[in-house]
């Protein structure tokens, strides 16, 4: 790989630009799709590889090419700069997530409590709308406060996030479901929310809860067949 190509790969990553590195295995010739043009079949393979986020070797006119997708990092948006978030954030970074923490309460969202992540001190609805969550984004709400969690969930449910999780008991979630219905969300959309959040590993401490949340996020990302928790029932008197 030439230093020039390496620099282009790194600037594509910094600009959150999905690119595919194409390598001809016979001689190591390389190009970067779509910046460099590629013959139709190779461009198609690059597109597929980026969509599946999976590298593969393809043969074109008797030549083997390695098609290596370089997608922008996965994103994790955490609403609530709370105690669990302090455990969640440092565990999410080595898993490859670019992490953003949203909390308008100045005392919580401080650099001292959260290093190496983007902190946003705005209201979740505005902050979430600006972040434009996509199919490579996971959203976790941790505040327990409907004023903060609900607007974030409202935006998340309208976006193709691959994971939406909300901290709170079944009872809390039941009330939340009722509120989200009033906001106009249908049952199928609301069922996307993982609540109670996290895999059922009997987590007690903040780091244990963070671990169960991240394990559930990885499982969702990888399409693992996991038994989901029994969904929370809506309270009889909403």
């Amino acid at each position, binding site marked *: *790989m*030439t*230093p020039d190509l*390496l*620099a282009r*790969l*790194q600037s594509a*990553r910094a600009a959150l630009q999905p690119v595919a590195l194409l*390598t001809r*295995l016979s*001689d*190591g010739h390389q190009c970067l799709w779509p910046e460099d043009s590629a013959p139709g079949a190779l461009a198609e393979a690059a597109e597929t590889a980026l969509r599946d*986020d*999976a*590298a*593969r*070797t393809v043969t074109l006119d008797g030549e083997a090419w*390695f098609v*290596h*997708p*370089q*997608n922008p*990092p*996965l994103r994790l948006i955490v609403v609530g700069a709370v105690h669990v978030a302090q455990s969640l954030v440092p565990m999410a970074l080595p*898993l*490859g*997530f670019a992490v953003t923490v949203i909390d308008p309460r100045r005392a919580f969202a401080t650099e001292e409590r959260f290093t190496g992540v983007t902190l946003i001190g705005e209201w979740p609805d505005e902050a979430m709308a600006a972040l434009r969550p996509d199919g490579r984004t996971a959203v976790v709400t941790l505040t327990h406060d409907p004023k903060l969690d609900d607007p974030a969930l409202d935006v998340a449910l309208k976006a193709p996030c691959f994971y939406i999780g909300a901290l709170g008991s079944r009872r809390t979630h039941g009330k939340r479901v009722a509120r989200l219905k009033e906001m106009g969300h249908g049952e199928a959309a609301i069922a996307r929310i993982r609540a109670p959040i996290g895999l059922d590993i009997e987590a007690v401490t903040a780091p244990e809860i963070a671990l169960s949340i991240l394990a559930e996020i990885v499982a969702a990302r990888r399409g693992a067949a996991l038994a989901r928790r029994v969904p929370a029932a809506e309270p009889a008197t909403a």
Partner: protein
Amino acid sequence: MSDSEDVLATAASWRAAGETVALATVVETWGSSPRPAGSRLAVTASGRMAGSVSGGCIEGAVADAAKQTMASGTPQLLDFGISDERAWEVGLACGGKLKVFVEALS
């Protein structure tokens, strides 16, 4: 992909520090290979390593090949598998097969 991106960043910083660097990438796997296609290992002539292309079974052999590539500038496509004598030597205990592309960063 993020861990392989970190390998690239590490490789870039090594090169900026004046090291000679080679990159190894898993380009194909069959059976129970521990690391998927796209996994990267960066190696320097001075013996530093970052990332991985297996669970540790073939890193030594790949680093040796990388040293050749750093010296010659010619990329290599390495085959590792249970039917491969060389793989027996380095012990690919998982029983998988994989191909690793080795190139100089220059």
